[in-house]
């Protein structure tokens, strides 16, 4: 079924399968854009954590067992296995096989959301879950938004026939059919046959932007921050010390004209408050670097303030203040950090 953007697939699948209280298993964090949909249909979302190989599929069976024991009704597993939004991680081949096997054994549907799969900047492409399973339990969500145009609002869903029938009924109820004008335009575009060249040109644009962001993070974010290195897609997920609430941090960052997506919006269980999603595809390498510099400065400020408040770090000395006042001087800033680190170490040594 051709849909009005990939987003409509999420809505239609949830509308088709979920009664209030039914369970969806999703990565933690999950796609923030799906959260309002899950909420609107009163789905009960159970998160499974991720590591560098994507969703911890090794925990999937025990989660399903637990749900069964609790008498909760699992309807489907929602996953963005490749260059996940917002996590940036990619599910390993082994876990893909494992997930498809579990889905078949347990007879659980999977919604594979794959908007970014073609935007790979390094490494070998991995087969989609849909290809591994042959479309028996896996529903596949595709979109032209990231490889052609988000404004054209065109996506599609492939699903096992009984589910697809219901999705089709939902689709007719929602908007009868997707704009045929958009469909004809996309058809004409793909008939030209050079769409892969365009995707390649996109990856050539995005790769240096990703690299610029990763370099800038290394340079400007404090040592307490952690992030991953995405091999494709658009996002880096950063986790800060747990005393920083990124929703509040955003208010401070906005005063410096820079924004990010606070992590709380990617969880339905209250987690993610100290995390943030950073996008590197939308801005030039220079602007991305400047944005990361500003966010890094604000975080460092808060890390330092927290240290001062807990007594971990002494209040700033007059000497340090003098240096810090020369704000434009990047080296001066680095010297203050160094001075403070030394003082802290001295204090620790004295304490020990």
């Amino acid at each position: 079924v051709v849909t009005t953007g990939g987003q409509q697939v999420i809505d239609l699948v949830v509308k088709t399968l979920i009664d209030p209280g039914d369970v969806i298993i999703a990565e933690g964090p999950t796609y923030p854009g799906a959260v309002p949909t899950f909420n609107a249909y009163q789905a009960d979302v159970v998160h499974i954590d991720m590591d560098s190989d994507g969703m911890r599929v090794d925990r999937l069976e025990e989660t399903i067992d637990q749900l069964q024991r609790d008498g909760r009704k699992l309807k489907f597993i929602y996953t963005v296995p490749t260059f996940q939004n917002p996590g940036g991680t990619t599910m390993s081949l082994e876990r893909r096989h494992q997930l498809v096997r579990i889905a078949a054994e347990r007879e659980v549907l999977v919604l594979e959301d794959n908007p970014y799969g073609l935007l790979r900047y390094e490494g070998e492409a991995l087969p989609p879950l849909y290809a591994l399973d042959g479309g028996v339990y896996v529903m596949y969500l595709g979109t032209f938004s990231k490889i052609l145009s988000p404004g054209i609002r065109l996506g599609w869903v492939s699903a096992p026939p009984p589910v697809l029938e219901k999705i089709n009924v939902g689709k007719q109820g929602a908007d009868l059919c997707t704009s045929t004008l958009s469909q004809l335009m996309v058809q004409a575009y793909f008939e030209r046959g050079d769409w892969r060249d365009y995707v390649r040109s996109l990856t050539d644009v995005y790769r240096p932007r990703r690299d610029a962001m990763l370099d800038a993070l290394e340079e400007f974010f404090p040592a307490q921050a952690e992030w991953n290195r995405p091999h494709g897609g658009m996002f880096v997920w950063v986790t800060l010390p747990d005393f920083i609430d990124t929703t509040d941090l955003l208010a401070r960052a906005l005063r410096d004209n820079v924004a990010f997506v606070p992590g709380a919006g990617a969880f339905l269980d209250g987690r993610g408050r100290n995390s943030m999603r950073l996008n590197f595809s939308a801005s030039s390498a220079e602007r991305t670097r400047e944005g990361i510099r500003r966010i890094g400065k604000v975080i460092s400020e808060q890390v330092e303030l927290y240290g001062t408040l807990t007594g971990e770090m002494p209040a700033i000395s007059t000497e340090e203040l003098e240096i810090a006042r020369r704000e434009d001087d990047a080296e001066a800033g680095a010297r203050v950090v160094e001075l403070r680190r030394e003082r802290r170490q001295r204090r620790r040594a004295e304490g020990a």
Partner: protein
Amino acid sequence: VSRVAVLKGGRSLERQVSLRSGANVEDALRHLGHEVVSIDVGSDLISRLRSERPDVAFVALHGRDGEDGTVQELLEILGIAYTGSGVLACSRAIDKVMTKHLLLAEGIPTPDFVAFTQTAFRELGAADTLPAIEERLRFPIVVKPSRQGSALGIKFAGSAADVPAALVAAFSYDERVLLERHVEGRDLAVSVLDGPDGPRALPVVEAVPADGDPYDYESRYDIGRTAFVCPAELDADVTARAQAIALETYALLGCYGFARVDLMLAADLELAVLEANSIPGLTDTSLLPQAAEAAGIEFDELVEQIVELAFSRQSAVGGRQTAT
């Protein structure tokens, strides 16, 4: 019939609330037959106002710039009549620390508090005073940014371990924060509306959070998350005291036109002022419109009255008097 510029939106964190307040006001003005000029406040504010030449500006902005006296100052310079409080009252009301000091000086009850700038901690070692502060205020302690509306950045610290993170969060919104004694009790709001016979207090609204829900930003503006009772079910003398305190606060800050005063009613029936809002929300779920309705003033009528008050101030004061 007047040409009314409705100032809404802007870049404050309360933009979304302001857009809803502004849209409500615009609807009312159109019902009343006024000509509406809708302005989403941005860098073209001055040029828009100069070219549109409105008779009066309806300031439906919340938070920074719109509620802190900045936009009011600009309107004074342009000589355009505007709704609500002037620069001084706005500057006082937006600043919780300033408001509380004024209340203390006037003998109007407000919960005990201590306020600091970031500099105090970063450069003057104020962290060493935290244990004494915690002992004085007792837990839970409410930590708030001084100048930020809509409950943004407000945290409850249940123990000493929570205080540093709560302060870091509050400092995200403002250079100055306050630690305030938490008053267990009922959440009341008294709106004040000026009129030909001077300001009068409207019926008291009580905000009753849904079970377990903290009274946070989300629940304040999401229909259904907080129940509002108006008039609040209170003894007549408590209502009278709450209204009297609201009027005193209104006068103390020098508010004009309308304002809302938020209070806590403790178990021992003592009242304490938390803050005053010089431009309270005018959305469907906002408290001032609810209170006005309980007093028999429909929203359209409320808006008309606020606009008329803007004109009467203009003719009475005719601009700010300054020493020469």
